[in-house]
């Protein structure tokens, strides 16, 4: 049982992401905004398994997270897919162990990318005279999310990467595809 759990640790954590996303612990927030949780899982997963896996699991994550949120104004899928591809290419271009603080930088940039895509989708869908009403809160959301994601990423991503590497062999990688 223990072995079974260890082998599928990454998938178990994947299932927990929407739960953390819904939990929305206020004490971890800043200006009522939370870090962008899915990136913490997507970064180590894509770095180990490559861009194709990154795209697929970015899509899966986006589908689940879109399902648990109400907004039909925007979708999280494009941002997560782009991040999946990009995070996967980090592995290809660099064999060096990425430092803890670089995780923070990468996740912060990923969060900025996703946040900007959300914001653009909202602006595009509500294309009217009231657009400027959402401009300031939108920018504030992006900045707070980038800050928090960058802050937590070094702590979470490096631990997840270590766990995924130790419990998941190359054979398991293909199994999930």
């Amino acid at each position: 049982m223990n072995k079974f759990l260890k082998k599928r640790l990454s998938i178990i954590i994947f299932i927990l992401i929407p739960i953390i996303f819904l939990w929305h612990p206020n004490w971890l927030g800043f200006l009522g905004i939370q870090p962008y949780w899915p990136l913490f899982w997507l970064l180590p997963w894509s770095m180990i398994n490559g861009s194709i896996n990154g795209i697929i699991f970015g899509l899966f994550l986006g589908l689940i997270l879109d399902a648990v949120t109400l907004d039909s104004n925007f979708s999280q899928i494009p941002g997560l897919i782009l991040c999946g591809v990009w995070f996967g290419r980090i592995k290809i271009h660099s064999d060096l162990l990425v430092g803890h603080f670089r995780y923070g930088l990468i996740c912060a940039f990923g969060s900025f990318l996703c946040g900007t895509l959300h914001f653009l989708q909202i602006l595009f869908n509500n294309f009217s005279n009231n657009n400027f009403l959402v401009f300031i809160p939108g920018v504030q959301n992006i900045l707070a999310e980038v800050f928090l994601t960058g802050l937590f990423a070094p702590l979470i991503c490096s631990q997840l990467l270590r766990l995924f590497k130790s419990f998941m062999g190359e054979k398991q990688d293909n199994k999930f595809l």
Partner: protein
Amino acid sequence: MSDIRRISTNRWWHKKNSWIFFGIFLFLVFVRISKGSIYKDFYYFISKPFWPGQFQKEVILNSIEQESLIKVDLLKKDNIRLREILSLQESYNNDNISAAVISRKTGSWWRQIILNKGSRDGVKIGSTVVGPGGLLGRVKNTSLFTSSVRLLTSPESKLGVWVDRIQVNGLLVGSGDDYPNLVIYSKDADIKVGDFVSSSPASTLLPPNIPIGIVKSVEEPLQAKKMAKVVLLAKPHVIDWVQILKVKFNE
């Protein structure tokens, strides 16, 4: 010897009565210095049950409370009757569902709460959700055990509201922050900071006269419309229990 002994037993401090009188004297001195406070306080406690005002006040307050309840009940019935005549949306009824908030996303891009009552408990999409203070939002989605509520602060939320002081209808639009925008399609509307905003009496989506918020700031008129920021009375980021109003929609 015997003489000396007799004298010593006759000293005043050897007499009990002298000490009693001395004690009474000291007490009276204390009473004098304290300006009779002990007596006054003692009198306060023993006379309390016989005060005329206290009992009378309770009786009057009870009567006022009963009168208010009867008045509210009569007005409710009157309101329902008049609304039926005018074919308007029904106001509050007693058939509400209490629900706990199990997930809360009140910041960031998503503005929603998830409640622990779903379609199994009779929650329907479009039901109004109120919390301590007033309106929170409307049920957007239900599952068997949960229901998701779109908050008034969500950029997707648009509701017709009523500004009572100037008797004008407006549109409350979520802007993604904690203060939704009130849009009034009249450049000359005399809206002021502190105006009370409630659900519109003519609304077909919401029960009428539910408190929503208070105008926080008014912006300069733009293109024949006036805009204001509204502070919500119900605070979704701290409310743990809410009421889902079962609303009968007009066919």
